[in-house]
C-alpha cells in the first residue's frame, strides 16, 4: 500500500514538473556581455568590432573561389583555399577548380550587428567624447561598406538595410526588396565618405583608419565604374532585373564613379603614403609583403596568429601559403607542396629577356641560353619579377635551396617555335625530338642521349610527367610573393603560416587611380587625364625596376587578341597588364577580368601554359618553350555569372527578391 502511494506521488511530481516547464524562466544569461558592458569602454568596443573585422569579406589566402570566405559559418579544410584560389580562375596560376567562383554571400546577420552599433554608440558620447564617438561611427560605416561591397560586386543591387530591424514586425515590412545597382553603389559611397571624414588619421597594424576607407573607396568605385562602363556590351536580354535597374548600369553613369576613385586616391596621397623601395629592388619588392609597412605602403592589413609549435587544423588564424606554393623539400614545404603554379599567361607580361627571335627566314625560333640562370640574372628582367617568382637557379632564402626546374630535353631543335607549340599536350615534332621523364619525387633522371652520357632530363623540383599536381612544379616557376623568407624549420606545413595579408596597399591605389583617369579620359575625350594616368603607372614601374612606359598617341585596338566584345586601346591594355604584374596572386585578377567583362572570352577553353626550360643536347644550350601544363586542365567561364544569381534560399525567405536576368 505504501509503495502505491509513493508511485502516485512520483507520478504527480513528474507531471507537476512538466506543467511548470511551460513557465518561462526569464533570466539574463550569465557569461555574456550585454551592450552596456561592451560599449562603455574602448576595450569593450574593440572586442565588439573585432568580431566584425574577423568576418570581413577579404579574399585572403584561405578564400576558396567556390566555397567562399573562411568564416565562422563555413566548412573547414581552409588549406585547400590556397590551391582553389581565384588566381586559377583568372589564369594567373593553375591549380584546382570547382566552379565559376560564385559562392553565396548574404551576410545580413553581420550587417545587423554594425547597424546595432551605429544606433547605440551615440548614446555613450558622454563617456567617450564627441571626437572619439565620431571615430567609432566612422569605423562602423567603413565596416558596413566593406560588407555591402562583398555583396554588390557579386549580385548587383541588394536590399539596403541601415537600421536594426524588429524581428516582431510584420513579414511584409521585413521583406526588403532589392535596391537598384546604382543606389547600392551610392550607398557604399556615402558610408565610405563618412568614414573618410571621421575615422582616425592613424591606426595600429590590423586596424583601419580613414585612409583604409579611402583605399576601399578607390577599389569599390572602380568596380562600379567598370560595371557601368561595360555592362551594356554584354547585350543581355532585358528582364525584370535589368528593367528595374537592379542589375547593371548605363555607360553614362560611369564617369561619376571614376571621379570618386580619383578623389579618394588624392586624399591618400596627401596622407603621406608612398611605395616602399630599396637599393636592392628585388628584395624591396618582397619586403612589401613580409614587412610591416604601416603608414608607408600598407593601408589595411589582415593579421594572422603567431607561429605555433604545431598545426592547428581548420583554424582561420593561420594559413598555408608557404606549404602550398613551395615544393616539397628540405626546408621547403613539409605538407602537400606546390599546388598553385604560376601560369605563362602572367609570366609573359613581365619585362624579361626575349625567349624568341627571328631567324634568317623570318620565322620565330627559341632563343638559345648558355644557362637557365641567364633568364633572371639578366639586367633585362625587372627585379619585381624576381620578387614575384622563383625561377630555376634562384635560391630560396630561408632554406638555402636552389630551385632546380627543367622540363626535359630536346635531342635536337631544328624547327621553329611554331613546330614546338601546340593546342595539345604533344605533336609529331615534339614526339620526335623531345624527351621527358616520369621519375618520382626527389629524384633526377640521367640518360644517355644521342650517344652523350650523363644528360640531366629533369630538375629536382620539376618537371616530371608523374606525381600528380602537387609537390613539384607543373609550370617551370614557383610563386615567391608572400613566401616567408625567415621561416624556420617546421613553419612550412599546413596551417603553419602567419604572414599578414596586405588587404590594401598604396600600389593598388595608384593603379586604381591610373585606370580611373584613363577611362575618364576616354569617356570625356580628355588627353590630359589619360597622360596623368601614366604618371602613376610609371611610379609603380619605377619601384619595380621596369622601364617607364610612354603613352601611345594613336593607340591601336588590341581587344581582338582576347576576343573582347568591345575595343580596347593599347594604352588601356597596358594599364590592365600593369595591374596584373603588380597585383599578381593577391586575388585581384579574377575580379578585375570579371568587372572588365573580358573573363568569358579570355577564359574560353583556356589551358594554362608554363615556362618550360629544355636542354638542347646537340647544341649544349637551353631554350624556353610554353607547353601546356601536363594536367591539361581547361577553363571556361559562364558569362551569366558576371552577376551571380540571388541565392534561392534567400528568395524562399523573402519573396520580394527579384532574380537576376541572364541565367
Amino acid at each position, binding site marked *: 500500500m505504501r*509503495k502505491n502511494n509513493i508511485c502516485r506521488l512520483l507520478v504527480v511530481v513528474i507531471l507537476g514538473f512538466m506543467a511548470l516547464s511551460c513557465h518561462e524562466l526569464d533570466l539574463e544569461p550569465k557569461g555574456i556581455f550585454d551592450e552596456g558592458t561592451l560599449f562603455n569602454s574602448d576595450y569593450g568596443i574593440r572586442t565588439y568590432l573585432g568580431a566584425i573585422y574577423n568576418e570581413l569579406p577579404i579574399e585572403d589566402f584561405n578564400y576558396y573561389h567556390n566555397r567562399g570566405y573562411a568564416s565562422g559559418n563555413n566548412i573547414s579544410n581552409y588549406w585547400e583555399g590556397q590551391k582553389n584560389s581565384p588566381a586559377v580562375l583568372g589564369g594567373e596560376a593553375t591549380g584546382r577548380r570547382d566552379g565559376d567562383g560564385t559562392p553565396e554571400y548574404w551576410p545580413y546577420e553581420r550587417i545587423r550587428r554594425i547597424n546595432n552599433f551605429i544606433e547605440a554608440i551615440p548614446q555613450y558620447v558622454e563617456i567617450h567624447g564627441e571626437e572619439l564617438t565620431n571615430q567609432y561611427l566612422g569605423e562602423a560605416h567603413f565596416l558596413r561598406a566593406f560588407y555591402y561591397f562583398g555583396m554588390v560586386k557579386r549580385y548587383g543591387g541588394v536590399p539596403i538595410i541601415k537600421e536594426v530591424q524588429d524581428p516582431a514586425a510584420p513579414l511584409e515590412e521585413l521583406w526588403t526588396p532589392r535596391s537598384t545597382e546604382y543606389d547600392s553603389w551610392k550607398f557604399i559611397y556615402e558610408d565610405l565618405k563618412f568614414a573618410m571624414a571621421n575615422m582616425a588619421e592613424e591606426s595600429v597594424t590590423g586596424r583601419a583608419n580613414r585612409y583604409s576607407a579611402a583605399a576601399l573607396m578607390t577599389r569599390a568605385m572602380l568596380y562600379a565604374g567598370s560595371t557601368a562602363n561595360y555592362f551594356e556590351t554584354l547585350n543581355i536580354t532585358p528582364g525584370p532585373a535589368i528593367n528595374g535597374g537592379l542589375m547593371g548600369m548605363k555607360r553614362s553613369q560611369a564617369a561619376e564613379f571614376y571621379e570618386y576613385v580619383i578623389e579618394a586616391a588624392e586624399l591618400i596621397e596627401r596622407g603621406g603614403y608612398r611605395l616602399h623601395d630599396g637599393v636592392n629592388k628585388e628584395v624591396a619588392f618582397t619586403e612589401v609583403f613580409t614587412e610591416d609597412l604601416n603608414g608607408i605602403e600598407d593601408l589595411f592589413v589582415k593579421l594572422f596568429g603567431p607561429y605555433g609549435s604545431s598545426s592547428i587544423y581548420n583554424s582561420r588564424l593561420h594559413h598555408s601559403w608557404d606549404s602550398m606554393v613551395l615544393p616539397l623539400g628540405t626546408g621547403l614545404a613539409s605538407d602537400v607542396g606546390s599546388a598553385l603554379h604560376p601560369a605563362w599567361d602572367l609570366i609573359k607580361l613581365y619585362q624579361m629577356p626575349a625567349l624568341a627571335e627571328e631567324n634568317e627566314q623570318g620565322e620565330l625560333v627559341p632563343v638559345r641560353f648558355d644557362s637557365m640562370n641567364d633568364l633572371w640574372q639578366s639586367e633585362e628582367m625587372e627585379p619585381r619579377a624576381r620578387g614575384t617568382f622563383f625561377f630555376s637557379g634562384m635560391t630560396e632564402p630561408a632554406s638555402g635551396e636552389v630551385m632546380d626546374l627543367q622540363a626535359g630535353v630536346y635531342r635536337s631543335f631544328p624547327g621553329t617555335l611554331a613546330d614546338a607549340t601546340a593546342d595539345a599536350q604533344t605533336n609529331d615534332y615534339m614526339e620526335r625530338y623531345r624527351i621527358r621523364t616520369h621519375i618520382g619525387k626527389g629524384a633526377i633522371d640521367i640518360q644517355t642521349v644521342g650517344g652523350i652520357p650523363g644528360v640531366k632530363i629533369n630538375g629536382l623540383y620539376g618537371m616530371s610527367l608523374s606525381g600528380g599536381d602537387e609537390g613539384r612544379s607543373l609550370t617551370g616557376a614557383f610563386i615567391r610573393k608572400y613566401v616567408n623568407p625567415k621561416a624556420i624549420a617546421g613553419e612550412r606545413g599546413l596551417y603553419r603560416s602567419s604572414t599578414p595579408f596586405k588587404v590594401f596597399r598604396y600600389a593598388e591605389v595608384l593603379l586604381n587611380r591610373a585606370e580611373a583617369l584613363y577611362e575618364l579620359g576616354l569617356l570625356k575625350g580628355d588627353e590630359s587625364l589619360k597622360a596623368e594616368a601614366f604618371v602613376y603607372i610609371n611610379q609603380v614601374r619605377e619601384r619595380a625596376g621596369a622601364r617607364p612606359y610612354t603613352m601611345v598617341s594613336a593607340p591601336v585596338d588590341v581587344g581582338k587578341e582576347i576576343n573582347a566584345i568591345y575595343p580596347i586601346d593599347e594604352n588601356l591594355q597596358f594599364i590592365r597588364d600593369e595591374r596584373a604584374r603588380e597585383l599578381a596572386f593577391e586575388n585581384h585578377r579574377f575580379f578585375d577580368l570579371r568587372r572588365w567583362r573580358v573573363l568569358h572570352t579570355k577564359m574560353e577553353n583556356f589551358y594554362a601554359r608554363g615556362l618550360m626550360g629544355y636542354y638542347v643536347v646537340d647544341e649544349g644550350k637551353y631554350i624556353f618553350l610554353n607547353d601546356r601544363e601536363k594536367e591539361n586542365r581547361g577553363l571556361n567561364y559562364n558569362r551569366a555569372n558576371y552577376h551571380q544569381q540571388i541565392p534561392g534560399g534567400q528568395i524562399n525567405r523573402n519573396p520580394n527578391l527579384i532574380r537576376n536576368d541572364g541565367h
Partner: protein
Amino acid sequence: MKKFVYSLVGAVSVLCMVSCMEIDNFDAPDARISGRLIDKTTGENFITDHGDTHIRLWEMSYSSNPAPQGIPVRFDGTYNNEKLFAGTYDMLPFNGPYWPADTIRGVRIGKKTAPQDFEVIPYLHIIDFEAVLESTTLTLSCRLSAPFTEMIINEELVPLPNVLEVRPFLSLTMYCGAANYIGEYWTNEYRVNLRVPWERIDADGDGLSDKTYTITVPVKEGYTYNVRMGANVNYTDQKFNYSEVKRIKVPGN
C-alpha cells in the same frame, strides 16, 4: 501501480513511434505539355541542337515569384515534358539564338494539354551549305543571311548584335551541334573569327553575306561524319544558328 506506470510508458512510446511513420502520400506530378519551336520566317521547326535552347516555365499558380523551370528543346525542334505539376504557367522560349520572344501567360497545364507551339525569329540563317570531301580533307562552306537586321524590343530599336564566329561541327552520332561535337575541331584553327557588325558582313545590303565562309578540316578514313556549320552573334548566350546536317562517309578501311 506497476501496470499503470508501464502502460503509461507503453502508450507514450507507441505514440512516439507512430509520429515518425508518416507516409508521404502526395502523387507524383504527371501533367504534360509538348509542342514545337517554329522558325517564324520559314514555318519549319527551328534548326537547333539537342538541349541548345529551352522553354522556360514559371508555375504562377504556385507562387508569385517562383523559381524558373526549363524544358530542353530537342534536336528536331520539339519539346515535351510529362512530369509537371498541374497548374497555370507562364512560358517563354529562352536564351536561344533568336530575337527575344514574348512570354505566353496563363497556360493551363494538366493531364491532357493541347500542344503549345512557339514562334521565334532566328538571328541568322546558314545557307548554301556545301561539304566537299577530297580523300581525307573536308572543305565546308556556307553563307550567312539575316532575316532581320534590327527589331523593336521594349519600344527601342535594337540592331542585330555583332556576328562573332563561324564554326564547323562534326560528330559521329545522330546529334550534331554545340552540344554534340568532336572536341578536336573546336580550336581557333578551324573557325572564321569575325566579330564585326552585320553592316561589315553584308555591305551591299541584300540580306546575304558578301563572302562565302570556308573552313577546311581533316577527317579520318572509314568514318561517317554528320557535319554542319554554325554561326553566332553577341547576345546573352552566344549560341549558334546552324545549317542543315550533311552526312559524309569517308571511304577507307
